[in-house]
């Protein structure tokens, strides 16, 4: 019983990280139909900036906030200099641009920061909390809590606010959105800033657990993308469920079957879901109106 609980704690911690990355994918996808593969680099930038700012003497909370602001600015710059000039290109072209941007950001991080692994202190210490024979680190609770708060805020944003609905409208039909008076350029900038900021928050929350280095983005983007696909691309609720589910599948496979099959099991489940429900667990079916 305590074993099961331990696996669940592990799955939720890792899953919450995937969910945060998947949420970042969701926002940009909602605004532009584009899957932004530099989402993992936003997580890296959040963590690395915090490490280096706090090493430079900035207190940790201030460093974390600054890191989020810096990363959001990078997101805006990415949109302004790489995505906007290619606005009329096909979605695939823009996705390739985001892959290029991710390689570029990794290279810059290698020079601006360094190639070593880093971490900073956990927010509330490292003493494990014992629950029914299983243990969880306080930082894991921070990650799960952070993911829940961001998810709730996003849900309200997309369903209850005019700006959030404008984002959805822009994604649906950019021309029509502009015709009804939505500033689609602003919406795009906003979604890149928001998505970068969420990535950075994820980076700040997870660095004490997972450590950070210039190249952690690739693996995170892959798992986050898988989580978003599992839950249904574009749906914040799907991103959350997809992320947590992916984490749980991995942990339970490693715990009960074998760690060798951990990643394979996760991807088999995703493939199975996509075969049965091509738009993911909670995705909307794609309809092209003529």
């Amino acid at each position, binding site marked *: 019983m305590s*074993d099961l609980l*331990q*696996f669940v*704690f*592990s*799955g939720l*911690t*890792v899953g919450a*990280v995937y969910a945060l990355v998947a949420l970042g994918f969701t926002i940009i996808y909602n605004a532009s139909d584009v899957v932004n593969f530099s989402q993992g680099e936003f997580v890296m930038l959040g963590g690395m900036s915090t490490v280096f700012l706090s090493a430079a003497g900035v207190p940790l909370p201030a460093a974390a906030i600054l890191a989020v602001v810096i990363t959001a600015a990078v997101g805006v710059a990415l949109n302004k200099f790489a995505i906007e000039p290619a606005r009329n290109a096909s979605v695939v072209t823009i996705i390739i641009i985001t892959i290029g941007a991710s390689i570029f950001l990794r290279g810059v991080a*290698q020079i601006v920061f360094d*190639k*070593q*692994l*880093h*971490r900073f202190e956990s927010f509330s210490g*490292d003493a*494990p909390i014992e629950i029914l024979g299983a*243990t969880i*680190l306080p930082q894991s609770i921070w990650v799960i809590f952070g993911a829940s708060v961001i998810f709730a805020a996003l849900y309200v944003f997309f369903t209850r606010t005019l700006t959030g609905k404008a984002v959805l409208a822009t994604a649906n039909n950019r021309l029509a959105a502009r015709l009804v008076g939505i500033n689609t350029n602003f919406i795009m900038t906003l979604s890149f800033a928001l998505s970068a900021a969420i990535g950075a928050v994820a980076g700040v929350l*997870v660095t004490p*657990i*997972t*450590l950070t*280095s210039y*190249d*952690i983005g*690739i*693996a*995170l983007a892959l798992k986050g993308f898988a989580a978003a696909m599992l839950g249904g691309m574009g749906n914040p609720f799907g991103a959350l469920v997809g992320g947590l589910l992916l984490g749980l599948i991995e*942990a*339970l496979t*490693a*715990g009960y079957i*074998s*760690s*060798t099959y*951990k*990643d394979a099991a996760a991807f088999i489940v995703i493939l199975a879901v996509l075969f049965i429900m091509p738009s993911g667990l909670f995705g909307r079916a794609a309809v092209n109106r003529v």
Partner: protein
Amino acid sequence: MTFLTRLKSTAAAVAIIGLAAQPALADIKIGASLSQTGPASFLGDPEAKTLKMLVDEINAKGGIKGEKVELVMYDDAGDANNARTFATRLVEDDEVVAIIGGTTTGTTMAMVPVAEEAEVPFISLAGAVVIIDPVKKWVFKTPHTDKMACAKIFEDLKARGLTRIGLISGTGGFEMSMREQCLKLAPEYGMEIVADESYGPKDADMTPQLTKIAGVAGLQAVVNPGFGQGPAIVTRNFRQLNIQVPLYQSHGVASKSFIELAGEAAEGVRLPAAALLVADKLPDSDPQKAVVVGYRDAYEKATGSPVSTFGGHAYDAFMILVQAIERAGSAEPVAIRDEIEKTKGYVGTGGIVNMSPEDHMGLDLSAFRMLEIRNGDWTIVE
């Protein structure tokens, strides 16, 4: 037309001046292909810095027997295809007399056939035992092997009377190779592998694997072949789960940053490592003390970054090569190779090297020190 003629004659003149400016003796050209960037950059970067530093140092002192050393260095970014291309370029275009490099086992093995065919001595900086076992005529290496690391760990476990071992290994090339060596060596030392789990190189949490290992009845110790972020996370998870058996890491984590990353959880962790890591703590009677302290101070002064055992491998390779050239009194590849093979009693950062036609590494288990992390620092336990 006149312009073209003038251009030609100018070019010819420049060429003649250029030839005249050449010293009577050609420089000794040493080639290197290292992974300065890419996934193995934390190995290749200090190696490259070390080689540059040593070449500057030796040239400032007048070179090898009056001849300047020229270093032709390429960055293969950890890609085996690049490494092979660069090795070919080094022997064919740059016409080097020896090659240092192959930061990883993968890049090394890609370069081996080129060096063998061109008959150029090649000193690898990578770990796996396959590089020198079986012995290849032109190939040498300086770092300890993963097999030795396992043997050292098993020796220590045996001395403590622990025999029921759980393995948790990363899935990278180095980790899988070391895991295999551990499995192979286990019966020899009377070890019983009671659990054998793995984790991905970028995994964030290993508590499921460790919970499973801890659940095995009669578990006496856990060994973690790994490098990168994995071992630090394994160590933290190990303490989180409060597993009450000794934890052993590999020499893959032998750097100060491991203690920083793992924090208090690193207390009591044991690992085999080269003397370089504990330069200050070696007794003055230790033959390696002067070498490792000297290299460490020079490196830290030249680069401003802390020394690592990886740079030490490059230091040893370069020194063995220079001494071989000095002894040979010639910069002919054949003569250099023969002298490298005769290296005896070379005291380096990795240990005391005694090569022979049957052994192209020349290190024994004494090259490894068993360390334990106490109060956030290394302690030698023997």
